[in-house]
């Protein structure tokens, strides 16, 4: 492409005033046309990535992008680098966005990273340019139905430790009210399993008629979609929709905000349209049926998951549950609700920690844990399965072991209702 030239006129007369000279270009179109924007054009030509071209460099996004607080990053910077000829497909920038959606909240031009990132990443994955650790998570998900690489035959194994009935649909053979979509980390991760046990006991205590898919369930796939593996997402969605369609139920309750996002916005496009609630929404509607027998005399703060809060507008249900806990003092951190920080796990970040380390001064989860401690919290309450492991690691790596417990809201509720004996790991 030919490089556009600055327009400079030998003789320029504007409103009868002669303005000849090198500076007269300010009266003509400028700046953007002075770059060779071939790379920008190439990027914005990718379906989904068009809006990157809308950026007019106001910088609002830089002020809110969590990644910029630990690095040098934001949509404004991505646009600028692309404009200067750095291809986003080849740049590490492509893998740092957690799709937290904070920039979209403030961007006057609606530069939409939630569409740009998956679109450009998909191109990079096709070109063989994605980080290895991410590809391993993709391969695991394709092969085993979970990104961790655990046996698909053991997906329902956690339920054996629940101490209450957790019916598996294939064996139950009768309709249920609630189909609980458990997801991967709650099914396999040791801390995720503890939260699942807590939730199973709560559902039993509420006499909910529920069932799980067990080994028929696979990862909902939303984060893989955001990380650039749309084909994998579609394969998983088709599988889950097929399995769910075998059974009769009234609605789906999910443990994971990422699954919530998928069931709300993406699965319907593929023919899987069911009413869905995050478990905090489901439980908040049934709070009056829970009787609390234990007090938790602690200062608790809450981290809004990006995919429950900013992406889907649910800020109140988790807070209604937390404020119902006897003894609890709920403190809000500076970054809360719409302006909540990000744990770093979204958009594939969960599987990119080693890659990200080279481009950031610390993990987002570490930054968030410091904030919780700054606000004097004893417990950081969370409600996304990515967060317990991320924040617990961060508590240790920031040297705060023993000062802050990280608990899923289900765990706190189950303890307070008297269904489990422990509420804090420390």
């Amino acid at each position, binding site marked *: 492409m030919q490089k556009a030239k600055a327009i400079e006129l030998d003789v320029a007369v504007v409103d009868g005033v002669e303005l000849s000279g090198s500076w007269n270009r300010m009266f003509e179109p400028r700046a953007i046309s002075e770059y060779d924007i071939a790379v920008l054009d190439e990027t914005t030509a990718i379906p989904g990535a068009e809006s990157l071209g809308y950026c007019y460099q106001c910088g609002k996004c830089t002020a809110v992008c969590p990644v910029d607080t630990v690095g040098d990053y934001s949509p404004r910077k991505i646009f600028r680098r692309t404009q200067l000829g750095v291809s986003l497909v080849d740049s590490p920038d492509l893998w740092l966005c957690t799709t937290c959606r904070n920039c979209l909240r403030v961007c006057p031009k609606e530069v939409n990273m939630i569409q740009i990132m998956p679109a450009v990443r998909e191109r990079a994955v*096709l070109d063989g340019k994605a980080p290895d650790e991410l590809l391993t998570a*993709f391969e695991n998900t394709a092969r085993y139905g979970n990104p961790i690489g655990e046996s698909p035959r053991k997906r329902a194994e956690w339920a054996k430790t629940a101490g209450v009935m957790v019916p598996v649909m294939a064996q139950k053979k009768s309709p249920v009210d609630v189909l609980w979509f458990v997801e991967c980390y709650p099914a396999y991760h040791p801390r995720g399993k503890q939260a699942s046990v807590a939730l199973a006991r709560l559902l039993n205590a509420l006499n909910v008629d529920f069932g799980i898919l067990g080994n028929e369930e696979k990862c909902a796939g939303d984060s893989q979609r955001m990380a650039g*593996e749309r084909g*994998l997402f579609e394969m998983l969605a088709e599988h889950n929709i097929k399995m769910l369609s075998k059974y009769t139920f009234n609605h789906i309750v999910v443990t994971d905000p990422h699954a919530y996002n998928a069931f709300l916005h993406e699965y319907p496009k593929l023919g899987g349209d069911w009413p869905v609630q995050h478990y905090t929404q489901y439980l908040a509607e049934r709070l009056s049926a829970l009787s609390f027998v234990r007090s938790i005399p602690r200062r608790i703060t809450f981290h809004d998951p990006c995919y429950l809060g900013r992406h889907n507008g649910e800020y109140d249900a988790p807070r209604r549950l937390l404020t119902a806990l006897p003894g609890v003092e709920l403190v809000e951190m500076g970054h809360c609700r719409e302006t909540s920080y990000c744990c770093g796990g979204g958009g594939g970040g969960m599987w990119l920690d080693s890659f990200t380390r080279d481009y950031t001064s610390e993990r987002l989860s570490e930054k968030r844990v410091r904030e919780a401690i700054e606000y004097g919290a004893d417990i950081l309450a969370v409600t996304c399965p990515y967060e317990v492991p991320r924040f617990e690691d961060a508590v240790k790596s920031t040297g705060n072991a023993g000062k802050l417990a990280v608990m899923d809201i289900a765990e706190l509720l189950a303890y307070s209702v008297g269904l489990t004996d422990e509420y804090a790991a420390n």
Partner: protein
Amino acid sequence: MRIAVLLKSVPDLIEDIPIDEESGEILYDEMSYIPSEWDDQALEEALLIKEESGAEVTAITVDTGESDTMLFTALAKGADHGVKLVGDFDPSLPNRQRAHIFSQYLGPQSFDLVLSGVQAIDDIDGQIPGLVAGILGWPHASVVTEVRAHDNRVIFRQEYAGGLVAEIKVSTPAVIGVQAARKPPRYASIAKVRQIAKSSQLEEVEMSIQEVPSLEILRFYKPIASGHAEMIDGDVDEAVDRIIEILQEHNLMRG
């Protein structure tokens, strides 16, 4: 240059190996299967040769179950053809028979180079590349790390103990057992695999089974622990003391 890559699937060790306690037989039907990782290396090396100096790559497998995804994945990565050798075969098929099936197919074809993984985790009666080369009477090398092919010259490397590397030339056709490709095997995006599965055809060739000298497996069983590891309990100081004690016991401390 026409390159054949021989692929097989092997039990996925993420699942426990199911054994019939009484008969000591492996329950092949209850296992899940994944492509053998060494075959992945062989395929990658073939694709690198294709990119470097041009070649036509054909991925071939003996169908013992779900082989379509494996072949479509090979096509998505850049192989030109996928061939499924079908017959009354199941996953317990011994390598010797498998090698005969491969050889029956390869014999009349005009491949210049046959690559396959140096080994697989379930090789009981020998490795595929050596067996195939023997049956076909073609030159063979195994544990190879770098294969380059120009015109009809194939040059590859073998590493030896003691830090010695050999560069070896072979005339075609030849069979090579690949230890590792020059680069980690590439990723085939699911969208591409699915699109290939919709748009391309696998060639199916009917093959027969052949009587071969065979082994008789008496039983499979879980190894019985002989020695035992000592778990060191206690806090850091206690653990350190115990470790020092052990090192002293074994005369491994100096000064």
